[in-house]
């Protein structure tokens, strides 16, 4: 395999690894605030991204994902990584899934753009394949969202907030 394709696959693997790591971290944040439902959901999303990372590792015959911090993106972080700032301790499943949908869409767009860019054909082919996988994830999350109720009207109201002005 050409070096440029290896580099592309390393980047793709790092993107999945970073997304998985972040979801796992977000799950921990939610456990700390006893938001079990969303903690579990983020944990599940971490496992899904982890599976995608492992698929790439297997395909490439690698044993370990490259360190995501070695990569830079057009956006502040990888296209599939959730911004820490998007969280709220009372968020509900629907909020978390909307974040996940946003991430999957960004990832699909990222690969779609690459698959149409003026770059070597073998990278475009790999990018097109990844774009299709990300679109599949988009569809899965859309189905999941359709089964998930809207957040309660006053979802962020807390009569006994953990940190509040007395």
């Amino acid at each position, binding site marked *: 395999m050409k070096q440029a394709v290896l580099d592309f696959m390393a980047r793709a693997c790092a993107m999945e690894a970073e997304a998985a790591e972040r979801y796992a971290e977000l799950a921990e944040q939610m456990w700390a605030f006893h938001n079990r439902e969303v903690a579990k959901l983020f944990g599940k999303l971490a496992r899904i991204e982890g599976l995608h990372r492992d698929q790439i590792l297997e395909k490439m015959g690698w044993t370990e994902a490259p360190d995501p911090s070695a990569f830079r993106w057009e956006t502040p972080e990888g296209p599939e990584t959730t911004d820490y700032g998007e969280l709220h301790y009372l968020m509900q499943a629907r909020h978390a899934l909307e974040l996940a949908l946003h991430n999957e869409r960004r990832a699909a767009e990222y690969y779609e753009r690459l698959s149409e860019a003026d770059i070597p054909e073998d990278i475009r082919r790999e990018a097109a394949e990844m774009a299709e996988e990300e679109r599949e994830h988009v569809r899965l999350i859309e189905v999941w969202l359709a089964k998930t109720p809207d957040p309660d009207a006053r979802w962020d109201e807390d009569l006994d907030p*953990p940190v509040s002005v007395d």
Partner: protein
Amino acid sequence: MIDMTLTPAHYKSDVKPVWCPGCGDFGVLNALAKALAKLALRPEDVAVVSGIGCSSRIPAYTSAYGFHGVHGRALAVGTGLKVARPDLTVVVTGGDGDGYSIGGNHFLHACRRNVDLTYIVMDNRVYGMTKGQPSPTTEADWTSKLMPQGTGLGEIKPMAIALAAGANFIARGFTGDPNGLADLIVSAVEHPGFSFVEVLSPCVTFRPEQREWKKMVRGHALAPAADSVEAATRIFADDGMNLGVLYAGTRRPFAPPIGRAQRTPTDLERRFAL
């Protein structure tokens, strides 16, 4: 020996942060771990020192030597440590309340002394830990239950103060860009002398409007000046949302000679005996 296998995960401890989900300080922890990995510093060669506040919990969450100090005294502890153990990379951390209110005097003199350490201030323009009192960087017209009319006081400009007081490296980062912030921290640690990194770190609980910062910041908007007059002109025209390195100076760091202590703790104890 440089260990090339160190990754950011090596610099995060097993203690799980209790910061509010969404808090900017998570981005600082992430960036600091990335920066230390990039610098390939062994955790035992690094000390993370802090004062008191939500942001000051960071030494507990990093896997390196740590000192969770006294409110406002992080720089005093960090300076003492660096002077006594110049072989350590000392990173001092804290909030705007810790660093500019109670610790304001230490800030001035740390800049003036120019000891070779890095100071990271997680500025959320509020006292988070004590539930939302205004700090010296809080906008004059920010109102809350505690300050219904606002402070009516103009906020200070820490980067201008750092420049005037003699800091050798001055930069601003944002927690929504942990990679960019990691690069700034690397440059700050590598630059000799006192390096000051102001980090815009939203407090989503007491200042939820700061979630909008991500739409307001301008990446790479500050270019490093080696000339303090040029840096001063720029910082006074700045609206607080420009990111990057403002100043990289050439002052020689202060490093007093280290020798054996003249008195033992027992001598000191004797002097205080009643």
